[in-house]
């Protein structure tokens, strides 16, 4: 019976939503196959939420080592946890922190490491489904080691409350031998305020069709009305209209929100690669032949300068 450990990421005591999504999926799996779901958190106590999403046990380690993120300390702590508790899987969200930790822990434990998964099945052994070539193809991967570290893409799994005992067990990793070499000196907030792209449930992106940096505000207004993140095509980023952190695509962020609204984006293969796994795709483009319409569920063939502000108003009305 598989025991699944789920890393509950926190920064400043704030937990990442992907953690609850992973717990939900782990609970669905163990409900069918038996085994337990373990929440593992460094530096904060997630017991209340973790139990709500089905964690059978909650392991927390606290102390000075878990203030600001440090890959060497946190990686060692998670590796020690796995050595002691022997979960079958360690799930880690594919976030900036998770992408840093997963390979580190897997290399320490010399076990399989599978990145950015969107599906997990257990039938005596594990099958992990993940996109490659930025979503142009999917693969099923089977780990051959007893433990596998699996990165999970935010929003891949549906959040679902489930009863879990949530029994809290403190664990005390021994980090006395580690003097971290790479150290975070400070964290600088970016432009901030808005939802982060890779975690967002809705993304509104602007392409070259917005014509200039001043018009990106149209995209941001619609995003704000929807509580969405604001993305961009590479054309917009390379023109210097918005920061690279907004770029969606093969060489930008990969996003898989419930709703993706592409405004003035032609739909180049490299852009589609980064957003085609979105559950619902809307294209607003004045060229009816733009390839983006082939990838979209809903389309409006019109000038974005008319439609986007009007849509923003409609959304405000709907939400109001």
């Amino acid at each position, binding site marked *: 019976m598989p025991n699944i450990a789920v890393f509950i990421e926190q920064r400043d005591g704030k937990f990442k939503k992907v953690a609850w999504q992973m717990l939900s999926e782990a609970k669905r799996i163990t409900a069918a196959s038996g085994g337990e779901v373990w929440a593992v958190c460094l530096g904060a106590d997630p017991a209340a939420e973790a139990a709500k999403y089905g964690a059978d046990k909650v392991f927390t380690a606290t102390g000075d080592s878990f203030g600001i993120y440090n*890959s060497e300390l946190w990686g060692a702590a998670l590796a020690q946890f796995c050595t002691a508790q022997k979960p079958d899987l360690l799930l880690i969200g594919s976030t900036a922190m998770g992408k840093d930790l997963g390979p*580190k822990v897997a*290399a320490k434990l010399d076990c399989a*490491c599978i990145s950015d998964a969107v599906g997990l099945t257990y039938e005596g052994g594990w099958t992990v489904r993940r996109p490659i070539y930025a979503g142009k193809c999917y693969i099923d991967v089977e780990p051959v080691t007893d433990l596998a570290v699996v990165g999970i893409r935010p929003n891949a799994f549906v959040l679902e409350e489930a009863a879990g005992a949530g029994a809290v067990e403190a664990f005390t990793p021994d980090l006395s031998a580690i003097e971290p070499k790479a150290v975070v*000196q400070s964290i600088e907030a970016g432009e901030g305020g808005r939802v982060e792209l890779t975690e967002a449930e809705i993304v509104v992106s602007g392409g070259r069709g917005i014509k200039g940096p001043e018009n990106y505000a149209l995209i941001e207004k619609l995003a704000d009305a929807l509580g969405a993140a604001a993305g961009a095509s590479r054309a917009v980023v390379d023109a210097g209209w918005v920061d690279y952190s907004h770029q969606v695509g093969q060489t930008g962020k990969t996003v898989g929100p419930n709703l993706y609204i592409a405004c003035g984006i032609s739909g180049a*293969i490299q852009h589609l690669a980064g957003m085609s796994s979105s559950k619902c795709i809307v294209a607003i483009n004045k060229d009816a032949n733009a390839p983006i319409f082939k990838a979209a569920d809903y389309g409006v063939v019109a000038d974005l300068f008319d439609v986007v502000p009007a849509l923003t108003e409609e959304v405000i009305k709907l939400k109001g």
Partner: protein
Amino acid sequence: MKIAVCVKQVPDSETRIKLDAPSTELDQSSFTRVLNPYDAYAVEEAIKIKEAGSDVEVVAITIGPETVTETIKKDCLAVGCDKAILINDPALADADESALATVLTAVLQKDSYDLILFGIKAIDDDSGQIGIMVAEKMGLPHVATITQLDLGDGTLTAHREIEGGKEVVTAPLPAVLTCQKGLNEPRLPSLPNIMKAGMKPIDKLTCADLGLETPAAKAKIKMYYPPAARGECKLVEAEDPADAARELARLLNEEAKVI
């Protein structure tokens, strides 16, 4: 100072995947292969350090078949790397990230490098694992996803992209870095330099030369699938943009239930 840049040849980002039904194999015969775009940032950063300093040697290291040589010449040697090491071993055809990291570690340990640069991820497997794994295997510090690098005396300060901002990280050398877009603007090779690149050395090695048994993969690909097909696009037709917007909002709210 000695810098290693680990690079991979990958299918060009325009590549279309030919796969109509689930299959245990993927036809890669029509792929056009190029340098992994993220590795170009790593190469560029190494060359910038070489140009800014004195006595800096830059070595490009890659695991791949013989056919990667052209990419190495054009995109590494012709833009300023001094030499290249190619590990060509058919036994590595099914290697996973962990196995490749083991081989790269063996290559890197044959020499002493002050900085080891990687791309954040290869755009074919999209894993983003190897740089971090190599750092761990070598017992070196790493900073992943860097968008700025400043070298001091035996130390470095790097900016690392995180959600909604960045971390400013310091580390002593030697260190491993994985490079993100924003770090620099990779240069293009000039024609004369492409010609001259042919004269720069490329060492060719196998696992046996490294005294290494071929490391086994820890995860195996069982099946390839095409992405789920999408239905027809529903066009919202309306003369007036305001009407179109209203109808679109209604569809997203009532039909797709996403807002």
